[in-house]
Structures are given as structure tokens and as C-alpha cells.
């Protein structure tokens, strides 16, 4: 890029999002001020703000980002890997409570961890994605551990969850945990570097980020349009995407399960996701995804794999073990390598996409081509 401006205001943010279709709808720019709102799967700039510098621009995960500074500032150097970010450990777990598992997408690990964090007082409020009754989820706040599970289940449309954190941090809450997609976790990471002193007290309330593995998210309008003819008026109970070999989306409705080929769904993928390097929510304290077990999809569906990245993440994992909140089983051999491979594939596709979008290897839109990490990644597949 010609200039790598790490500061800007709403006008620059708006221009960047509109020019490159970069917006992930994470909600980081929302509820910091009255100017920007998240509505119908998009950010609406209600009024113009003429500040040269603003938090909306600074926190956005798709404005120019110094990747190395984020990793170096937030994680133990010893834990950092180019493929998966910081890794303290890989676990395969599921919620011990069958009631949580029933409501969960897979093993219910996220719900169990958040409920535990609330119960143990590690956090006093949890920000989760909530089903709004429509396809579009929204960020919601839960303070009662027993309510966590009712919000379980994967959302294939990104909810503006960070906006809920922004709202919450302004108020009474003192210790906040957030369940975040990779883009949301990156926004929270950018906040954690405290570019604005005035916000330090808000961001200090962020005590836990549980990340969600994410291949991509879908555009609400487009997904709704694609699903509509399949649904024939019936309500969606659950959406899922089995491992890549299945190449389909499973839509469970009152009428039963409909399988829709992924190639039919692909056009609904948010353009911003194509430029995302992060499959495993590397900027979280710990990250959770569906497990890949030897017994295949049937078995894997009931379990999660968890990457622990920080001390806070490790502490919660240890608590879960001690309290019996999670059941553990051994990770299959090669699980870490499979994850790394999948993660690197996403990184490579994303960097290629960004270069293609800008038309130059030297312009990666929101990433700095001279960032040591970016250079290292490029070198790693050049070597293959």
C-alpha cells in the first residue's frame, strides 16, 4: 500500500470498508459513539464524524494492522508459532454436563467454559452471540452461568459481538468474558494494546476471550436468499458444516435435515473473510473448534478441540479439569499438524487474495508487507 496509516477516523474507516468490502461486521466500531450502528448484517454510519483519529478506525480488525506488534504484545514469545499463533496446549474436550451438550453445536466446550468462568468469578459478565430468532445473531450479555448454554450453537453469520463488549465495558461490569470469532478476537486484541489512554479502564475489564475456529462467515442477506427456496417456509433449528470432505451445509429444520452443497453456499461468504488469515482465533486466551477424531464426523461431532494460548486460558482450562466441567480425551496423533496445515492453507489463500485484490504483492490492504510475520509466512510456502 502507498501509505500504511494505522490511525484514522470514521471517514477513513468508511472509505476503507466501502472500497475493499473489508467489513466483517464484528461490531468493534459500534457503541463507542452514537455515529455507527450495526444493523441487518452491516455497519451503518448514521452521521459523519470529522475526527482525524478515532477508536472505530483503531479497533477495526481490517484497518491497517501491525500483526507482529499484536502477537509480541499479547503472548509469550516462547508460545508463538507462525501457523497457529500462541499455543500452550491442544486438548480434546466436551462439556461434562449432558444438558449443555444437548444444546451445543458440538461438544459444548465453549458453553461449559463460559459458565465455569462466571461461576468461579473469573468474569462477572459474558458476551455471547445470541440467536435473534432470525438468521442474524446479535451480541448479548449473560451474567448467570445457567443461561450460557441457551446461547450455544454455531452462528454462520457474524454477530456484532464486540459492540456488546463496548456497551458493557462502559457500564458496571468489571470482569468481562467474550466469545469471539477470529475477526472479533483481533479487534479485542487491538483494543488490548490500548492505543487510546482514555479507554484503558474499559479494556482492562476484558478478562477472557474464548475464540471460535472459523473458516469463513456468511453474508446474512445472501444466505437468506440461498436458503429460502430450500426451507419452504419451515424454521431453521440448526446449521452445521461437516468436515471438508462432506462439502455441504446441513440445515436442520422442523421438517428434518436438508443438505445443501457448499458450492451453492459459497457465494454467500462475506468478501471480508477471503482476506482473513486466522482460522483458529489466534488472538483469544483459548480457542475452540470442532474436533477431528479418527471415528469420523459422527464421533467428532460430539467433541471439541481446544488451543490454549495464554495464562488466563490455561487457568480456565485447569479450573475446568479440577471442577470437572469438561471431559477430556486424548488428541489423535497428528491433530496438531492437521490444524497447522489447515491454518496455513487459510493464511496462504488470504495473503494471495489480498495481493490479488490490491493488484500488488506490495500492497496487502490491511497488512504490512514488511511485517516480519508476513514475510515469514510467505517464505514458508515458498520453501514448500
Amino acid at each position, binding site marked *: 500500500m502507498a501509505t500504511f496509516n494505522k490511525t484514522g477516523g470514521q471517514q477513513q474507516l468508511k472509505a476503507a470498508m466501502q472500497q475493499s468490502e473489508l467489513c466483517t461486521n464484528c461490531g468493534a466500531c459500534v457503541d*463507542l459513539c452514537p*455515529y455507527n450502528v450495526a444493523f441487518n448484517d452491516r455497519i*451503518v454510519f448514521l452521521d459523519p464524524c470529522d475526527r482525524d483519529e478515532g477508536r472505530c478506525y483503531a479497533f477495526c480488525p481490517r484497518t491497517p494492522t501491525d500483526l507482529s506488534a499484536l502477537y509480541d504484545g499479547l503472548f509469550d514469545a516462547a508460545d508463538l508459532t507462525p501457523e497457529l499463533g500462541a499455543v500452550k496446549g491442544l486438548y480434546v474436550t466436551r462439556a461434562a454436563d449432558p444438558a449443555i451438550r444437548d444444546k451445543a453445536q458440538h461438544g459444548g466446550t465453549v458453553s461449559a467454559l463460559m459458565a465455569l468462568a462466571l461461576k468461579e468469578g473469573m468474569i462477572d459478565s459474558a458476551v455471547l452471540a445470541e440467536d435473534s430468532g432470525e438468521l442474524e445473531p446479535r451480541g448479548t450479555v449473560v451474567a448467570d452461568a445457567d443461561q450460557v448454554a441457551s446461547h450455544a450453537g454455531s452462528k454462520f453469520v457474524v454477530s456484532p459481538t464486540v459492540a456488546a463488549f463496548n456497551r458493557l465495558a462502559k457500564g458496571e461490569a468489571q470482569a468481562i468474558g467474550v466469545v469471539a470469532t477470529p475477526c472479533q478476537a483481533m479487534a479485542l486484541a487491538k483494543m488490548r494494546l490500548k492505543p487510546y489512554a482514555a479507554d484503558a479502564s474499559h479494556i482492562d475489564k476484558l478478562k477472557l476471550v474464548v475464540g471460535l475456529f472459523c473458516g469463513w462467515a456468511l453474508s446474512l442477506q445472501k444466505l437468506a436468499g440461498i436458503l429460502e427456496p430450500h426451507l419452504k417456509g419451515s424454521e431453521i433449528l440448526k446449521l452445521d458444516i461437516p468436515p471438508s470432505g462432506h462439502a455441504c451445509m446441513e440445515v436442520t429444520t422442523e421438517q428434518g435435515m436438508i443438505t445443501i452443497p457448499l458450492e451453492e453456499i459459497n457465494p454467500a461468504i462475506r468478501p471480508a473473510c477471503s482476506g482473513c488469515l486466522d482460522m483458529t482465533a489466534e488472538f483469544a486466551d483459548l480457542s475452540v473448534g470442532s474436533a477431528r477424531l479418527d471415528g469420523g464426523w459422527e464421533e467428532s461431532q460430539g467433541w471439541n478441540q481446544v488451543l490454549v494460548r495464554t495464562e488466563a486460558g490455561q487457568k480456565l482450562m485447569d479450573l475446568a479439569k479440577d471442577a470437572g466441567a469438561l471431559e477430556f480425551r486424548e488428541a489423535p496423533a497428528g491433530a496438531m499438524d492437521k490444524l497447522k496445515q489447515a491454518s496455513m492453507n487459510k493464511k496462504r489463500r488470504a495473503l494471495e487474495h489480498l495481493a490479488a485484490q490490491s493488484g500488488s504483492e506490495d500492497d496487502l490492504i490491511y497488512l504490512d508487507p514488511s511485517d516480519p510475520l508476513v514475510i515469514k509466512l510467505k517464505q514458508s510456502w515458498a520453501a514448500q
Partner: protein
Amino acid sequence: MSILSIDDPGKQLLYMGNEAIARGAIESGVRVCAAYPGNPSSEIIASLAKVGKELGIYVEWSVNEKVALEVAAGASFAGIRSLCAMKHNGLNVAVDFLYNLNLTGTGAGMVVVVADDPLALSSSNEQDTRHYARMGDLPLLEPGTFQEGKDMVKTAFEMSEELGIPVMLRSVTRFSHARGNVTLGDIPRGQNKPFFDVTKPRLPKPVEKTHKLLHEKLATAGQKFEDLPFNLYQGPDKPELLILTCGTGWYYTKEALHHLKATDRVGIAKVGTSWPLPAKFITEQLAKSQRVLFVEEIDPFLESNVKTFYAQNAAELGPKEFLGKVTGNVADMGENTPDNVMAAIAGCLDDCVVPARDQEHAAQAAEASKRLATTRALGLCAGCPHRATYWAVKNALALDGRGGFVVGDIGCYAQGRGPSGFQQMKTMHAMGSGAGVANGFGQLTRFGMDQPVLAVCGDSTFFHAAIPALTNARYNGSNLLMLVLDNSATAMTGFQPHPGTGRTAMGDTAPVVDVTKVCQSLGAEVIVLDPFDVQKTTETIYDLLQKQDGIKILVLKQVCAMVRTRMGKRLYKVHVDESKCLGEACGCNKYCSRVFKCPGLTFDKTTGKAGIDEAICNGCGVCASLCPESAIIKEAL
């Protein structure tokens, strides 16, 4: 007692031009007066309404100008002298009736006063209504002095009665709203009983008879004009330049010649009877000089008519040079001023220069006007419900995201086109045209138009001209959202009552014609909200925009801030908790004073904090609901 009803013949009083016209009607024994308010004409009927009961005159604010003219005609038909006043656009509304009335003829004297607004200082458009007199074969008078304002009305009544046609009188803003001395005449007593002679029906047909008769009447008017004192000449016998002028041009020209020291070089012929032209008088004037300059407001009306007249009499009058709007000597739009008239005259004379301004005096004047008159942007008042409405509209349209827009018309809410209405209003034409134009947009969904359309109109405009458009939308299935901004007043023209207010022009109570019930009777979905509840209003507008199945009507009911303040019923006392105010910091950036921009909100650059200007704040409390930090506190009064 009003200045208008002083019964002291010979006494001289200072009257506003519109009051002089009203006094002329009183001295003519007028007994029915009707109008729809509109600047610069409103004070004619407003001042008559104040003395109506005292003098036995019926005065009404009609729902629109056409109805007002019809009310006046009914009285005239039954032998009662009547007057109808309107602004220039008003005549456009009324002219359909007027151009039948000229053929059916009138009974008792009937005068139609039209006040033009050069440069559209308080109007949507600029137009010269004098053309209507020529097109409709009606006599037209233009007062040049305040005394004439009164006297011409009396002449107009007499002539109307004698010829059996309405007589028009044209004013302009600077005549209507300026003041001058007027010597009073008698206020007649004695009243006839109204009676409509059914053996003389008022029918415009057969036109071969009625139109011919109208032309004869007009010719008679032209002859009568010759003897009137309103046409006069002042200046040397053989001026090197003859100025033909009318209306405000009389004073402007006299002042200009004085400053130019050209009174012995230039003559002024004042034409008070602009249509039909007094042929003999015009011939006499044209004979005085080879060079003729026309000074008149807006269009080259006198100029064109005199040139047409000259074409028929060129052989007798010899060669002439005509100067005016057509030749570019005088601007062909906008408002005349003593300055531009002076420049025009100087430009037509050799060795004549506009005297330099007294710079010291000019500086003093500039300083005084800066000191005494606060500079402020044109916009909605503090606490105006329309600001809250446009805020909700702006947000609802932004959330909707399909590029929807507002079409509107004339009223305070026309400020919706400017900063105080967040530039939401995108079309503005005649009264009720927002609703009408929306009918057209609302039919285009069939061709793939996906921008939702909102129309706005005020409550007075609703009765004036919106009802037919809404009926049309319902009948023809147009997809539109109508916002009726019901502030219980005809606010822009001076708070005149209308059918929804429960009061009449003369101060009596009247049955309230309920806007909501009228809307409901159309069978449309109707919702009533308080626009001060910005959140609810935004959500409702958004929801209604999602329905593309015909007309939806949202009545936004909240009394005009000025009316509320005058009633002493402010809703809230508002103040800023400076400890919470973020000022220019990220998170606010002067949201209240920079974005919402109510004039009651201030920002102190030194402290970096918002504040409330208590002298201006009307206590609507909307800013308190918008402040992101809840730093604006409202306390119910």
C-alpha cells in the same frame, strides 16, 4: 382597539402596507374577507380578523386559496362586498375558479389582493402574478404609496361593482411589509341584507356571449383608468429619459433621481393601473421622450405591454428606444432595491455616476447590524418537532439502506432540505406536492425502483392540498409513507389557526377536524406518534418502509415549539452535567451541537463542554435522549 378601526376621518396614521389595504377594504364597507395565509399577504386578513367583530365583518382563514376565493365570490353574488387575499402561489391554486368567475361576473364589489414575493424571500418560487390579470381579462392596480394602498382598494371595489368583475390589486413584499402614512376616510355604516337573485344564475356559458362581454368590461376599465389619480407624471416636460414605473418603483426611482441629481433630466411616469393600460396616459408619456426605461418588480410586464401598445401606435409616436429587463438594463428576476434602480438609471444616462457611498456611515451601519442582529443560519427553531422528525427519518433511511428519500413541499418543514433538517427533503414544489410527487414515485416499484419514498406535509398543508393526493395514493395503490407533521399550527406564516386547531380566524371555537380520523377514513394504515420519542419514531418509520403495499400514514403529533413557548408550557428544563460531557473526544465529538445542531445547544471551546442556551432552548428534551453519555439532563416542568 386596533389601529385599523379608528374612526377619525382625516387623521393620519402609520400603516403597514397590508394594513393600508385592509383599511381600504374597511372604508369600502367590506363584510366578507377570506384567505389562506401566506407571506407576504398574511397581515391583510390577520388584521381584519382582529376588528371583524367590532366592525361587523366576517373574516375567515379558509383551507386554501381557491376556497377563499369561492367564499368571497359567494358573498359578492349575494350583494355583500368581499375581499380575498393571497400570496402569489395562492393565485395559482385559485385561478381555476377565477377564470370562471371573470365570465360569470360578480355582484357586489369583489377585490382580489395578491402579494408577490420578489426573490422568494419567504416562498418556494418567484413569479409575477400580474400576468394572470391580463390572461383573465381583469383590471389590475398596483399601489406605489401607502395612501394608494388604501385608496386603490376603494377604487377597486367601486370599479368591480360597476363592471361586475373582480378587480385585482398587486402588492409586493416591500410594499406589504413596509410602513407609511395613511390619511383615514370614513368607515361606512348601514348594511344591506344579502340576497342571491336566482333569476340571474352565475354561469360562464355561453362563452361567445360572456367572454365578449368581459372584453367590453375590460375596455371600459381602461377608459376609467385614464381619470384616476394613480397614474401621474413627475419631471421636466422633455426629459432625456422617461421612466415608466409602477408599485415600489415609484419610491425607488424618486430616491434614485434625487441621489443622481438627475430630477431635471429624467421624468417618472407612475402607472398605478397596470392592466389594461390607460392608452391616453401612456401615449402622452411616450410622447415626452425618445428613450424609455421601465422599472418594475419581477417580470417585464409593463415593459411588454407598453411595447405592444407602441407597436400599434409607432407611426404617431415616432422612433423610441426601450430599455428595461429585456435589454438587460434592469435584472429580469429578483427584487428591486434603491441601489440597483439607481445603477440602472445611471447606466442609461451620459455623464451620470452613482455617488460614492459614505464609507464611514456604511462601516457604522455594518458594525451596528453585526452588533444588533445575531448571525444565525436559516433553519428550524430550537425544540422544533420537525428536527426530531427529520432525525428519525435520517436514521430510519440510513438503517434501511435502499437510498430512500423524502419529498415535501412548503412550510417550516421545508427546512428539511437544509442542515437543520439533515438534508433529508429532496423535492419541494407546491402545497401538497410532496404527497402528490410521492404518488408517482410510489408507482415505480413495478419497474424495479427499490428506493422507498416518504412524503412530508404539515397539518395546515394537509387540509390545503394533501388530501386529494392521499386519496389518489389509496385508490391507485401507490407505495408511499406519508408523514403528516402535525404541529397544530400554520407555523411558518404566523400561527394562523386551521381546521385541525379548533379555533377560527375571529377567535371563536370550532369543531376540530381530526387529521388522524381523516387519514383513517381513507382506509390506510395510520399510526400516531410523538416525534420527540425519537427511538420509537425511527423504528416505526423503518418498519413502515419495509411494507411496500400501498400508502401508510404516520401522523407525528407535537405542538410547534413557538406555540408551546407562547403558551408557557415548556416540557423540560434542560442542563448539561459537564462532568459527564465528552466534548470533542472520541465517543462524542460534539454530537449534540455539531450533528443534532439544535440552536439551543452550545459548545464552549475553552472548556470543551456542551451547554444549553437557556434563552433559546424551548425545552423539548430530545437532545437529552440523544447524548451518548447521558450528560444532558432534562427535568420535567
